[in-house]
């Protein structure tokens, strides 16, 4: 009798738990926050000030009309989570990822083709600075739209420069002249410890994939990877000479005292490196951590025998995509279209301290921008020699390998030829597997 009663209670409890789970999970996964409007869920990587800036743009959009409500969520690891949510059939309507992930996401079939909607909205290449528009195209399809872009330049701490390099016009134009400057500026302490480096390619080491590109090298020609091309070997030999110049162990020890990029202990701001290759955003951090610093920016030098590479700059781009299976793609695109408006884009890029990806830029944008060198960064974005991540499905592996190559060369454990040759062999294998398994070639 007691057993029967217990069993009935157990069954009832189980059914209640099950029913509650169904109701709660439905509530939890239902993203419609407002009944009278369509809720568009927007996942973005930005947090802090950058996240707040985007939230202001979202608020502006939400106030500008009464049909769509964009819900902005800062998500860490947004790329992984977007992929997993897409595979689970419940992706956000918009995801903010990085430009170099376009190929990987598109090859995985994770992105919606935005071409028809963009054509209908009248968006085309002429509205954008060419390379930024090209970055969001893959296999002749528009798979993303730009948000904030970046270009890079050499940042120079004027107080560390000899008088003859006091102005941007006087700064070395070629890499050979830069080498001479590094020799002149770098300092050692009385006990022979390195205390100031004129330049270090490994600080911050974010463009390790691109040293070859600065010397005219390519990572890919047609369908073949060209990691150990002569231009790339030349470039990484140049990178390696800093270890030889200062001592491999010496550089390691010196760098171990560098603080995080986003901190007052940043090596450039604390005067441990006199120059640094950095993006347009660097001015934000200087203003925050070292507002009195006297600095200027110039295009990164080019090899003396390759004047055609003058004015080259690494370009990067934050992008927004509509994942496959998004519930409200049309409404999501409405918001993306809004962000592409010149006044909106300028507001966002201005708040982020970046240049604009649009071809038309207002004088007001330049005049009110927080970065005093914003015109230079705009010019660099329009360079004849844009350097950016190749649209390659194994870009993550390639970038990892080239980081490793750079470390091996900096540590002196491998010669540039050896390190690049080994990376080429590993990447060739991975590329073959990727072509076969993902691209079906």
């Amino acid at each position, binding site marked *: 009798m007691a*057993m*029967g009663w*217990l*069993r009935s209670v*157990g*069954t009832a409890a*189980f059914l209640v*738990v099950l029913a509650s789970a169904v109701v709660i999970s439905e509530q939890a996964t239902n993203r419609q926050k407002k009944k009278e409007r369509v809720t568009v869920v927007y996942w973005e990587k930005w947090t802090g000030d950058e996240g707040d800036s985007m939230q202001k743009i979202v608020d502006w959009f939400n106030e500008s009309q009464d049909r769509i409500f964009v819900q902005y969520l800062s998500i860490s690891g947004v790329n*992984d989570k977007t*992929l*997993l949510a*897409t*595979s689970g059939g419940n992706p956000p309507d918009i995801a903010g990822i990085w430009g170099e992930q376009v190929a*990987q996401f598109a090859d*995985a*079939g*994770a992105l919606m083709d935005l071409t028809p909607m963009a054509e209908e909205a009248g968006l085309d290449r002429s509205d954008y600075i060419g390379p930024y528009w090209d970055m969001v195209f893959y296999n002749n399809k528009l798979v993303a739209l730009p948000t904030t872009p970046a270009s890079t330049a050499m940042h120079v701490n004027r107080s560390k420069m000899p008088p003859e390099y006091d102005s941007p016009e006087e700064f070395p134009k070629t890499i050979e002249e830069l080498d001479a400057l590094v020799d002149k500026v770098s300092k050692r302490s009385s006990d022979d410890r390195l205390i100031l480096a004129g330049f270090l390619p490994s600080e911050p080491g974010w463009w390790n994939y691109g040293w070859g590109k600065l010397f005219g090298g390519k990572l890919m020609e047609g369908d073949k990877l060209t990691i150990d091309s002569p231009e790339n070997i030349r470039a990484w030999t140049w990178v390696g000479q800093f270890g030889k110049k200062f001592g491999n*162990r010496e550089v*390691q*020890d*010196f*760098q*171990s*005292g560098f603080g995080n990029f986003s901190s007052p202990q940043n090596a450039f701001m604390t005067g441990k490196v006199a120059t640094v290759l950095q993006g347009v955003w660097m001015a934000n951090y200087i203003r925050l951590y070292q507002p009195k610093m006297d600095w200027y920016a110039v295009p990164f030098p080019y090899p003396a025998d390759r004047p055609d590479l003058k004015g080259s700059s690494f370009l990067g781009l934050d992008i927004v995509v509509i994942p*496959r299976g998004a519930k409200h793609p049309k409404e999501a695109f409405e918001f993306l279209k809004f962000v592409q408006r010149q006044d909106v884009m300028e507001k966002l890029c201005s708040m982020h301290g970046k240049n604009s990806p649009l071809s038309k830029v207002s004088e007001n944008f330049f005049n009110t921008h927080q970065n005093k060198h914003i015109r230079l960064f705009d010019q660099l974005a329009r360079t004849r020699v844009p350097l950016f991540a190749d649209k390659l499905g*194994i870009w*993550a*592996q390639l970038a*990892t390998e080239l*980081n*490793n190559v750079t*470390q*091996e060369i900096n*540590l002196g*454990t491998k010669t540039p030829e050896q390190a690049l040759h*080994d990376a080429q062999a*590993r990447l060739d*294998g991975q590329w073959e*597997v990727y072509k076969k*398994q*993902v691209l079906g070639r």
Partner: protein
Amino acid sequence: MKKPILTREAATAFLFASPWILGFLTFLAYPLLASLYYSFTNFSVLRVPSWVGISNYRELAGDEVFHIALKNTLLYVIAAVPLGSVMAILLALLLNTKVKGMAFYRTLFFIPSLVPMVALGVLWLWVFNGEYGLLNEGLRGLGVKSPPNWLGDPLWAKWTLILIAMWGSGNAMVIYLAGLQDVPVSLYEAAELDGAKLVAKTRHVTLPMISPVILFNVVMGMIGALQVFAVAYVMFPGGAPARSTYFFTTYLFDNAFKYQRMGYASAMGWVMFLITLGLTMLALRLSSKHVHYEAMQ
């Protein structure tokens, strides 16, 4: 009358156990079996898995980075497990003495093992910083002119992680402590009558008596060390410098979530399982003559 497959009692038992059974089937058994299947497929999360036979395993055999990660992991296990065990046993022996305020000391030594791994990684970054780190400041104070570059030198980076592993000896220490308290006092008294001193008592009484506990902790420590991930991931992004701290699980994670090669990562997971199983069986076999279970009875 036909006998029912399940008696009423058994059915009730299953009903009450059903939350756990459902959880086990959904969150453990299914993923486990699914990963075995995926290890024979090309699976990128978003596309339907396609059968590739043993090609993931064949690729692993020739994958240089996999070999580096495996070698790093095994070296870490070889160094971290014995050192961690010795540390935990020594601490447990010390904390098993009769000293005033022992409860406080026991708590003090256990607390470090409660610190979250990521916080621990960030904290150690500052301790081991080559230029400003507490450790090198101390070494310079002791007259070491050129202390190691713990984080930037491939030779030292792995040792940094091994040293950090000892920080978390608290869990093993507590288990050893429980084992030590089970050792009958009469055995120590008998040993003392035979003239045994501290070292002899430890060697001939304590260690044999807690040998099953040592075996348990070594096996668990080995399994944990094979899965080293969080601290290394936080302190040495990408396995820097030059992949000297790139471990099995880091490579598995990168393949699964960075390169979206879930099939390949699943194959790695099963290779890890086989290695763990093999090492555990080896440990059990090698220890059979040195572990005295009769002491636990």
